[in-house]
């Protein structure tokens, strides 16, 4: 496998099954359908071009997500969205005592949750999506975002706390 020569045909076979997931992820990152389409298209073009550098046997999905994310980060929207990231200075959000999660069991509240997710800083949004929607392991998230495992755990914890906090505020307003 490691020595196997990768072909264009095998790129299509590997990459196209990820299309729907990547499109969904791109929309969450950009918050704009047209930008998301451009991002996905550019991701596939870059991945095809760089496919010879992909190491067979390593995680292809993480590789594709990494390309998409890096492409996003270098876009105008991405630069603007990520400018607020400062892991070390991020204030710890207080842990609430109420439990808004049970409210979310009702389907009618899905939009409220989506709005809360949209409102999260992009680095929280993306790690939540990779973990909860794409069900990536911490190791895969670490490869995708190019961050250490410890940062995966701490950023994920903060993202969850921020989401719960945002939900509580929104539910209080309902």
């Amino acid at each position, binding site marked *: 496998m490691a020595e196997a020569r990768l072909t264009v045909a095998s790129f299509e076979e590997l990459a196209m099954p990820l*299309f729907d997931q990547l499109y969904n992820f791109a929309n969450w990152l950009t918050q704009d359908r047209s930008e998301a389409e451009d991002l996905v298209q550019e991701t*596939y073009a870059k991945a095809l071009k760089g496919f010879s550098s992909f190491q067979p046997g390593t995680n292809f999905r993480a590789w594709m997500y990494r390309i998409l994310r890096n492409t996003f980060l270098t876009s105008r929207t991405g630069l603007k969205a990520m400018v607020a990231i400062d892991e070390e200075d991020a204030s710890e959000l207080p842990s609430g005592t109420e439990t808004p999660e049970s409210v979310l069991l009702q389907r009618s509240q899905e939009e409220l949750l989506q709005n809360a997710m949209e409102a999260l800083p992009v680095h929280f949004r993306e790690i939540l999506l990779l973990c909860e929607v794409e069900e990536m392991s911490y190791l895969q998230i670490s490869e995708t975002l190019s961050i250490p495992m410890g940062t995966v755990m701490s950023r994920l914890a903060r993202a969850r706390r921020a989401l719960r906090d945002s939900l509580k505020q929104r539910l209080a307003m309902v």
Partner: protein
Amino acid sequence: MSDAWTDKLDLYLDGELASAEMRELDVHVRSCPSCAADVLNRVQLKRAVHSAGKRYRPSAEFHERVRRSVASEPRRSPMWIWLTAAVALVLVLAVLAISARQRQLAELRIAGEIADLHVATLASTNPVDVISTDRHTVKPWFAGKIPFTFNLPELENSGLTLLGGRVTYLDQSPGAELIYQIRKHQVSVFIFNARQVDQALTSDSGARKTLSFNLESWEQDGLRYFVIGDAGAEDIRSLAELFKKAARS
């Protein structure tokens, strides 16, 4: 609610704890109502985010557009393949036809020139430069006059008579012309260096008619032979066979 396990609840639910710790936490959650409630809340949030996160679906048109852009080759219809094959076949046939026609034209041109040379000899007041019926006289006469040598056949009991020979030219290259008598017919035998004669002339003709003359041509040991005359095809053939036999000896 806060105890030593709380910080590990996310790792527990994400399946990132080692299996021994996983089992320990399982036991703990069953006996700790605070952690059990916390786990329930976290599971609900995980499920809700999992569902809400699958929000956007690409259109079929966009999916196809990207698939085409990374496809190894455009998908071609069977009709396209048949058309390609048909065009290729027509081209091959055309090339073969042109090649065959060029060869035919070259053969006709050479045959015409050989007939002209033969007629010019018959019309000449001095048809031969070396007059002899003896092949042992005629053959040495060509030495030094043409850039190759050849064997002349033994004519005993063949009804053929050698009248003599002369140097001749075809396509600016020198060759030998030998004149024979068969009954009342005069027949010329031309011998040239095969490499000097038209390259398109590669096949042996067999007996054929050219301007009402019978002509037979073949290549042997690097020499191109022509036997031409108004004698019958059988006579032309028998003289050709005598030359072929002599060349092999």
